């Protein structure tokens, strides 16, 4: 091979690594590599550079984002309600999307009503499934958030447990619900910290705990116009997660945890007493 050190060969091999070559170029480079040891050496050199760079860049993600930066951004997005709006496509386009989705849904029902029924069905112990797609509730959003965040062991919370006063001030201001962080050490749960979620379009506090096995439990609450003070607890299950929810005047609460948890109701009772 002639002049394998020229930038053009490096660029060709680099593009080859990125899959940015057409079929002819790929074939040419395959042939070149098959017959030319220097080309193979250069390719390995570039691969080595890629591996070194990728691992270096991966390390950037493990750097904690400076608290001051996160705080400035959070303050900027929490204080002003306009910052919490949902960014969406232009209204005109959204109508088109909904119209299309509605037409598709009708088509689905007409072609295979039973199939549509199964697709739209949700698992909820207390509500019999219906062929109509149910409106999402705050519990749906809380469950989805729990599934996502409980699998982020390194980034489980936004604010860690040692900043408990900040958590109380921040989430009380954000949700409009005053609360105390329960001590669940008797239940062998350790407070990890908190997040602010959006559930059913409302700011929602999520307090996160872990048990000795690393299983994640969450207490979520948001402001609610309810005047229900019965304290009646409603249990439900979503796949591998158990939920127990209840209302207090002005707020609604839910505890989320693994469905296999023994004495989950007792845990919810203990939490409700403190909250």
């Amino acid at each position, binding site marked *: 091979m002639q002049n394998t050190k020229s930038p053009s060969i490096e660029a060709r091999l680099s593009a080859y690594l990125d899959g940015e070559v057409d079929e002819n170029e790929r074939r040419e480079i395959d042939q070149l590599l098959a017959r030319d040891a220097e080309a193979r050496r250069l390719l390995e050199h570039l691969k080595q550079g890629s591996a070194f760079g990728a691992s270096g860049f991966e390390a*950037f993600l493990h750097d904690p984002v400076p608290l001051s930066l996160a705080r400035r951004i959070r303050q900027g997005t929490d204080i002003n309600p306009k910052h919490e709006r949902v960014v969406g496509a232009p209204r005109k386009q959204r109508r088109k999307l909904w119209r299309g*989705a509605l037409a598709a849904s009708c088509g689905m029902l007409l072609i295979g009503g039973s199939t549509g029924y199964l697709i739209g069905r949700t698992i909820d112990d207390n509500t019999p499934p219906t062929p109509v797609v149910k409106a999402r509730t705050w519990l749906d959003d809380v469950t989805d958030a729990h599934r996502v965040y409980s699998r982020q062991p390194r980034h489980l919370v936004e604010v860690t447990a040692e900043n408990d006063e900040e958590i109380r001030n921040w989430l009380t201001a954000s949700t409009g619900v005053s609360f105390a962080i329960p001590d669940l050490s008797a239940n062998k749960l350790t407070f990890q910290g908190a997040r602010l979620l959006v559930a059913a379009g409302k700011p929602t506090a999520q307090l996160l705990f872990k048990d000795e096995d690393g299983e994640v439990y969450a207490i979520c609450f948001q402001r609610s116009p309810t005047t229900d003070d019965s304290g009646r607890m409603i249990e439900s299950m979503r796949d591998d997660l158990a939920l127990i929810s209840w209302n207090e005047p002005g707020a609604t609460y839910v505890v989320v945890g693994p469905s296999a948890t023994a004495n989950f109701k007792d845990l919810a009772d203990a939490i409700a007493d403190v909250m």
Partner: protein
Amino acid sequence: MRPAQETIDISRDLVSLLPRLRRFALTLTRDGLQADDLVETVCERATGRQPVWNGHGRLEDALYTLARTLRDETTGRKRIPANLQDGQSSSENTATAGAVQQMIISMPEGLASAFLLVAVEHRTYRDAGRILDLAPDVIATKLATARARLASMASDMTQRRA
């Protein structure tokens, strides 16, 4: 399932994208403090009155493009000359992760950004070019140069350890 544009809350996503946004900002500014300032400005703009993202495509691409545009505005589109010449890429620092990171972001302007977008985050040359406002063939050249430099850094470190 709701349409994507109705389920995504940009403020929540911004917080979760912060590490990646900051990493990209570092490749643009090559300085931690400047990168943090840039990230903060991007977040302010992204949550301001004029949406930077219309719900189509990847939010992070829109944020990256905004970061690059703001950086260009700050520097008056004057490209910062490379602060390292060939053969000077390795510092006297020990081979710590921090030193590796410093070496990477100290590459001549544009190399780390192109490498990050394509080789690490797996964008096409065209998409990376859109973000960086560069033609795909320029991206290709930068990638080849970046890989060669990174390979040299890796060799230097291996020799130093030996």
